[in-house]
Every structure is written in C-alpha cells, then in structure tokens.
C-alpha cells in the first residue's frame, strides 16, 4: 500500500509543477516541451552508431526511410543513439514504457533484454508478417534470444571476427601464410616482434573485446561460461586456460605491446593500419583500415586460429557478432513497426545497408551478392556459417561481460606492469568475478 501513498504524493507534485512549469518555461524552451502528439503513422526508430559518425548514419539511413514512407505512407523519425548512451536509454524506455517503436540492439544483449519482457516476441505468426524465419541464416538467428523461447529480435547486420594480417610485414619476416593454429600464431608473432613493432595488437581496456575473445577461446578449450541451467562457470579449467592464453600474449609470449593493456579507444585498429603491428583480431574491419589510409593490398584476412587439429565446437573461431532489430512491445503501431522490420530486412535493403556499413547481410538469399564475396567478407561469412557460436544467451549476459571483461582488464594490466601471470592468479580473478554474479 505504500506504493499508493507515493503515487498520491507524486500526483500532487505533478499537479503543482504542471501549473508552474508551464508558466515558467515560456520563452526559453517552448519548442521542445510540446512534442507532437503520437500520430499512428509515425514510427520512432533508434539506430545504433554504425558509420563514421552520427551524422554519417543519418545520411545513410534517411534516404532509405524516405523510400519506406513512399511505399507505406508511414514516416519514420530516426534517432541515432551513440553506443555510450544506448543501453541506458533502452533501460529508461523499458522502465517507463516510453520508448521508440523499433530499435537496434547489440545482439549480445538479446537474452538480457528479452528477460525484461519489454520487447515483442517474434512468434511464428509474427515472423509470418515479416516474411518468415527461414530467410535468416542460422548463425545470426542463434543470437536473438534464449533457447526455447520465441526470439525477441531479428538479425540486421552480421559480423564476425577475422584475423587481419599485414601482408607486407609477413613478407618481410619471411612468413608465407597466415597462422592457422595458436602455436603458429605465437611463433609468427615472435618473428614479427622487434624494432618497435609487434606481432599482435589487442584492445585490453575494452571489456567487450576481452570477453568476445575469452568466449571463443574458452569454446576451443571445451569450456563455457555458463552451464546448461544458466549457472555461471567462470572458473572452469577450460575458461582459466583460455583467459591465461589471451593474457599471455603480453605476459609470456610478449608478442603484444604492454601498452595494449590500456587500449580502449580502437588504438589497436590504428596501430594495425599504421603498420605498427602485423596481426589484429577484429570484427569486419577492412573499411576502418582503409579509412586510416592503409593500402588495401596489404590487408590479408584469415580465420582466427584454433588449437591444432580441433573440430566441432573446439574449432569455434568467432562469436556471432552483429546488430539486431527489435520492436518495443509498447508500440502503438505494431503493424507499422512490423512493416518497417520487414522493409529493413528485405533483400534489397539488407544488401544495400550491409554493403554501406561493410558488414554481412544475415539473409540467406543475399549471401551470393557480390558485395559479400570480397576475400575479407567471404572469409568471415564462412566462419559465421560453420565456426561461430553466440555469446551465452542468458539474462545475466551484461553482468558476465562487465565482470569477466574487468577481470581480464585487471590481469592484462598486471601482466603489462611485469607481474607474473599464473594459472592461480587467473583463476583467482575469475573466482572473484563469478562470486559477484547475482544468484538467479
């Protein structure tokens, strides 16, 4: 009953301020405080930042939205939300019920957001309205929600990790082919390290990057960060070995520069593009290197290495990366929202947009398009088709990313400062991270 009393108090305050805020605000922000009444034929769309700037995204998307309006008579108001704000804005929208109609989410958040119940479940009937579930590749579809529940999103842009290598530096070091196993990678990395240059660049201060690599490596060691019942298993021997292997690039192998431990602003991409390092594991990055002025002929792409002779899930070379499109359950225009989803995932739009952003279309029917048959994208889409797995589709995924990502950041920081990295020290950090996971 306390809820009621607070509600009453809140209403009283509301009555007060409604009166005085109207009076006091005249003249300074009259334009912003009266938002247009929600017309049923206007959709609000939150897009994440994919291009070189927020403005660049607007320029790319707006013509497409115009096309949609011409086809359906539904106008779309676009807001490009920076990544720094996106999750918080979604949270506020979820808590208040006041959100956009259609929005972008990072596909690793799928299960977390699904568990809030704020997103529209795509059951069979819903999928029917947007042209069917089977149009999408299986890999990206696996990252749209927890197993056994209707997904709450559909894939929009697909990405995956590849091992980018500098062909010129490889040639100079006398290495003919990119490494296919970790032993080869470390051996090559040692040959490439020296004279101020390093074999490999990592983005050690970036929690998500850390976790993405830890995930794929753990799979290769036969480990998962959650068991089948959704309980965290961060400190399993496989996970510890995986993370130690990653930290050892700085600690033991010394093929990555110690300074990489604090990289969090894409410095590793810059270092690679500038020829300071010979290898980088990144999600579709060709366009980024070129924007830094790197000669496209120098850029080589190979699948991320695996342990020698690995097959099955031990040959996982990448997490399924990408952006999903989802509908806010509270939308007042469900039909329009679904029409918009259908439009954005149509073959024509999917090819055009993914091509512009340098990502891969998640549609089966688009795979043969020449846009995705460049050596770079072909390599990555092959990995996505056969050797990729989605990050754990559990409600606590974001806690997992923060805790394990931070643990790795701490380990890398210690390694960079010259402190020894042992199985015990890695395990201790992971135990600590796991104990901070909420019980659920």
């Amino acid at each position, binding site marked *: 009953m306390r809820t009621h009393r607070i509600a009453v108090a809140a209403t009283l305050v509301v009555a007060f301020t409604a009166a005085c805020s109207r009076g006091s605000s005249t003249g*300074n*922000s009259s334009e912003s*405080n009266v938002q247009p009444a929600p017309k049923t034929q206007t959709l609000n769309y939150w897009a994440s930042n994919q291009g070189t700037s927020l403005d660049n995204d607007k320029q790319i998307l707006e013509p497409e939205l115009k096309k949609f309006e011409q086809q359906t008579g539904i106008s779309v108001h676009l*807001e490009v939300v*920076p990544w720094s*704000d996106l999750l918080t804005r979604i949270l506020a929208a979820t808590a208040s019920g*006041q959100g956009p109609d259609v929005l972008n989410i990072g596909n690793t958040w799928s299960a977390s957001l699904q568990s809030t119940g704020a997103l529209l479940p795509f059951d069979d009937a819903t999928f029917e309205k947007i042209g069917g579930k089977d149009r999408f590749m299986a890999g990206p579809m696996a990252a749209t929600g927890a197993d056994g529940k209707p997904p709450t999103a559909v894939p929009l842009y697909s990405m995956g990790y590849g091992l980018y290598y500098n062909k010129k530096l490889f040639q100079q070091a006398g290495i003919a082919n990119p490494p296919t196993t970790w032993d080869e990678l470390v051996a090559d990395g040692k040959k490439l390290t020296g004279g101020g240059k390093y074999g490999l660049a990592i983005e050690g201060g970036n929690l998500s990057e850390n976790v993405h690599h830890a995930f794929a490596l753990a799979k290769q060691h036969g480990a998962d960060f959650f068991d089948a019942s959704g309980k965290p298993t961060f400190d399993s021997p496989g996970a510890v070995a995986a993370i130690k292997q990653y930290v050892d690039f700085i600690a033991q192998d010394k093929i990555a520069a110690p300074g990489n431990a604090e990289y969090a602003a894409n410095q590793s991409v810059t270092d690679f593009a500038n020829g300071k390092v010979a290898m980088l594991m990144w999600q579709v990055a060709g366009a980024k290197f070129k924007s830094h002025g790197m000669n496209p002929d120098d850029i080589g792409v190979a699948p991320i290495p695996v342990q020698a002779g690995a097959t099955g899930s031990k040959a996982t070379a990448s997490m399924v990366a990408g952006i999903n499109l989802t509908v806010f359950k509270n939308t007042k225009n469900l039909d329009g929202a679904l029409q918009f989803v259908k439009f954005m995932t149509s073959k024509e739009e999917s090819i055009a947009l993914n091509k512009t952003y340098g990502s891969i279309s998640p549609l089966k029917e688009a795979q043969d398009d020449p846009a995705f048959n460049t050596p770079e994208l072909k390599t990555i889409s092959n990995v996505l088709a056969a050797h990729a797995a989605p990050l754990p589709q559990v409600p606590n995924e974001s806690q997992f990313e923060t805790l394990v990502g931070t643990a790795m950041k701490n380990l890398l920081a210690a390694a960079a400062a010259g402190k020894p990295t042992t199985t015990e020290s890695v395990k201790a950090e992971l135990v600590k991270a796991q104990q901070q996971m909420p019980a659920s």
Partner: protein
Amino acid sequence: MPKPVSPMAPSATFVWVRRIFLVALTIFTLAPVLVMASSSLKPLQDVQGPFRWIPSSLTVRPYIDIWSTVPLWDYFVNSLIVSLSATVLSVVIAIFAAYGVSRYRFVGRKIFTVSVLSTQMLPGILFLLPLFLLFVSIGNSTGVALHGSRLGLILTYLTFSLPFSIWMLVGYFESIPRELDEAAAVDGCGPLRTLLQIVVPAAVPGIIAVSVYAFMTAWGEVLFASVITNDRSRTLAIGLQGYATQYDVYWNQVMAASLVVSVPVVAGFLLLQRYLVAGLTAGAIK
C-alpha cells in the same frame, strides 16, 4: 591615488617561494589547455601517434570538421538554453527563498534550511531512475513532456544548484543592513518592493556569484543528461562523446570542439570574475 604601501614587506625567501609556486601552478593549470590547442591543429594521424608539443604539420581541418561530425551547433544551443534557463530560474527561486529565510522568523525555518542543505548530499544514482519515471508519468498525465526535453533538464539542473545558492544568498542578505529595509517600509514599500528595489540591487555581486555557480553546475553535468535527453535536446556535456565513434576517436576534433565551445564561457566567466570575488566574500562570511 597614493602609492600603495605594502603592509607585508615580503622577504626574499617569500618572493622566491611565491615565484616558484605560481609558475609551477600555472604550468599545471595550463598544460591541458595547451595540449588541447596543439592537438586541435594536428591531423588525426599525428594525434594518434606519440605526443609532440609542436605539431609537425598544421591543419585547421578539425575546426571545419567538428560541425559536421556531430551536430555541434545544436548541442551548443541546447546547452546554452538549458544552462541559462536553469541559472535564471534557480537564482530567482533562491532569491525569494533566501529573502524569506533571512528576513522572517517563522515556524519550520530551521527545518527548511537543514533539509534543503541535505539534498546537496544526495547521490545522483539514487534518484536518477525515479526522477525519470516521475517525468514520464507527468508527461502521461498532463501532456507536458519532461523526459527527452530541455524543460526536464532545466528543472533538474535548477534544483542541483538551489541548495548552495540559497545557503550563500542567506548569508549575503543578512549582511545587508536592516536599516535599509526599514527605511523602505517607512516610505511605504511592501516586502516585495523592498526585495526588488533595495535588497536585490545591494546584493548584485552575490547574485552573480551564485549565477556563475549555477551555470557551471548545469554546463558540465553528464549523468542525468545521458538519461533525460534525446537527439533533439542533447547537451554538449554528452554530445562531445559523439566524436568517439565506432570507427575512431577523433581526438583532434574533440579538442577543437572543446576549445570552441569553451571560449564564450571562459570569456563570460572572466568578465564576471570581479563581481564574483566581491560576492563570495559577503556570502561566505556571516
């Protein structure tokens, strides 16, 4: 004007200590500003490389690009509108409240001052989400959209500076002699006219001091802005983060934009400086 005779005849040690101290402090204070200035004139490639004081090649390109990478002008206008409105409203409200507290003895006076002061301690995290929910429910029941709008931010920020403003103004008003009020009353002025015609003019320096404080509080706030604003009301404080994109962090543009938007504020601030100094004195010392 007679030649000022220094009452403190500084010893040589004192002068040297002062010199060294002030030089060191100037370097400390200006280092980031110099870095901003020099980095804002470098091409991106240079900024990403090892630091150098003198750019190897100069470019004004960042100063052109800042306007198109993010809608900097819109953010600037939003910030200005929000900060100025919050400042004016906060100071007006604080003047009334401080006048009430300093000139009248009434039931609840003590409780009011103590509880207002204590809101200065609230951790923002505690009421950020509830505040957003409240704004949304106000929007739903009255149609006044507070979330996502500049108005919502204005109301929020004005309360951020309110406690300190009231506190300082009370002290300041109390230092204005009561005889002035009484004389005005004899002339037939009501309390409000006394406030507007006697007290406020006498307190101009204090009011300016409080205004600067209120403006700065609103100008730099990040946490609430990231939840309450949308693309139409986004302020500089979070808008500047737009130079860090998925592609790259445009360091040179961040620095250029920071300098550009700071210039008017620093200039205005320096103009008001002399009032501020006189104002704080009377406010803080009762």
